[in-house]
């Protein structure tokens, strides 16, 4: 199972816990993980990636295993520890005041 950490507002929107677990078939990449997340929680479609371009929204970042993966290719394999469920894939909202 893949573990995904959600920011506060997306937890509320999805009515989910801070961390959700997902089954991902095939290679474990940003794209396949987010596809699985949106299939399980359709209300999150468009909130993490743009509906049309599928690009990461500007104020969100992807972290895992102490690394910033935001600028990695969406089709690059995620770290082994994410694929095995040992570490979560974290979706983080950029820090901003107000």
């Amino acid at each position, binding site marked *: 199972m893949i573990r995904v950490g959600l920011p506060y507002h997306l937890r509320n929107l999805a009515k989910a816990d801070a961390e959700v677990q997902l089954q991902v078939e095939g290679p474990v990449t940003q794209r396949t993980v987010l596809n699985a997340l949106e299939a399980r929680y359709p209300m999150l*479609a468009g*909130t993490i990636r743009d509906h049309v371009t599928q690009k990461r929204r500007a104020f969100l970042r992807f972290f895992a295993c102490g690394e910033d993966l935001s600028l990695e290719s969406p089709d690059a394999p995620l770290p082994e520890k994410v694929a095995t469920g040992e570490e979560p894939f974290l979706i983080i*909202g950029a820090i*901003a005041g107000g």
Partner: protein
Amino acid sequence: MSGVRVLVGTKKGAFILTSDGKRAKWEVSGPHFAGWEIYHMKGSPADPNRLYVSQTSGWFGQIIQRSDDGGKTWHQPGLKPGEPTTTPEGMPMAESNKFVYDTSPETGKPLTTHQWYDGTQHPWEFKRVWHIEPSLTDPDTVYAGVEDAALFRTTDGGKNWHELSGLRGHGTGPQWMPGAGGMGLHTILLDRQNPNRMYVAISAAGAFRTDDAGKSWKPINKGLTSQYIPDPNAEIGHCVHRIAMHPSRPDVLFMQKHWDVMRSDNAGELWHEISGNLPTDFGFVVDVHAHEPNTIYVVPIKSDSEHFPPEGKLRVYRSRTGGNEWEPLTKGLPQRDCYVDILRDAMAVDSLDSCGIYFGTTGGQVYASPDGGENWSAIVHDLPAVLSVEVQTLR
């Protein structure tokens, strides 16, 4: 027993304020969608229990919320509480947050560009829904004005949205440009007497009218003068802040422009200025008394550089003559040290026998007058900055 329901959108959530017809005691419910910007919420004239909300965030984009019970419970259209969230094939069922510009060949003018702040051309990019306007007759049909400026419509209660691309594609789009707050379509007026006629307004492009239910559009900006564009009398480029009409007289329009309060008596074909004796003719809101089509309200703001009331005195100005002759209404409003702003969607009226006037401020107050503006009091004092105010009259 009659009553009112005031729908307040703020920078940090939605609030619903309810009262009986006396409008003296209020119940406050909220925050709904806490922490999100609520640009607008509005009820269906055809079914007052049907409410639509534009919930938006710089982080997470656009969400549409809907209530079928007057705001007690909410769901994203397409996702009813307790229902499966996917089809048997595993496909997502909720599409209510999907606003995709029309690029089909049928429009003849697929998505192109508009003018950017620096004068260069810039592609259209969807940012958020500024204004929601439910149909006068069908609770499932709703119009949405969005940033970057375009008009969308749903006919299935908010599940799916499709652009009325004749507006963006009618020809002047490349001349439209954003105001400081973005390039938003913020005003949608539906003509009760002619279902094919509709008005919209865009900052900073101007006002537009359709006479064929949204298929084709024409700019209606003759008579407007704006010193901040190269040709002050140009057909396009005016920063219209708000337009209002009385349902009984849909050819008469009142406009608060960036500067100037304007009036048209021929469905926007020609405008003339009615600023008259206002202390300043900058401002955002304009509205019309529910029972007196020639009685109008504005809240003058000092200038485009200083977005607060002149002299620190919060004054609503009323004209009973359809413009030019204005009187300040101050009883119950702060008359010193007041430096809030009143944003374009933050004024509304009810239709009880004694017409109620309402407005919200960036300081978090919502003021109400149950007697057409003579006496004011704050229903709430300390909400987040108010972005929008709508009123439902319940009978």
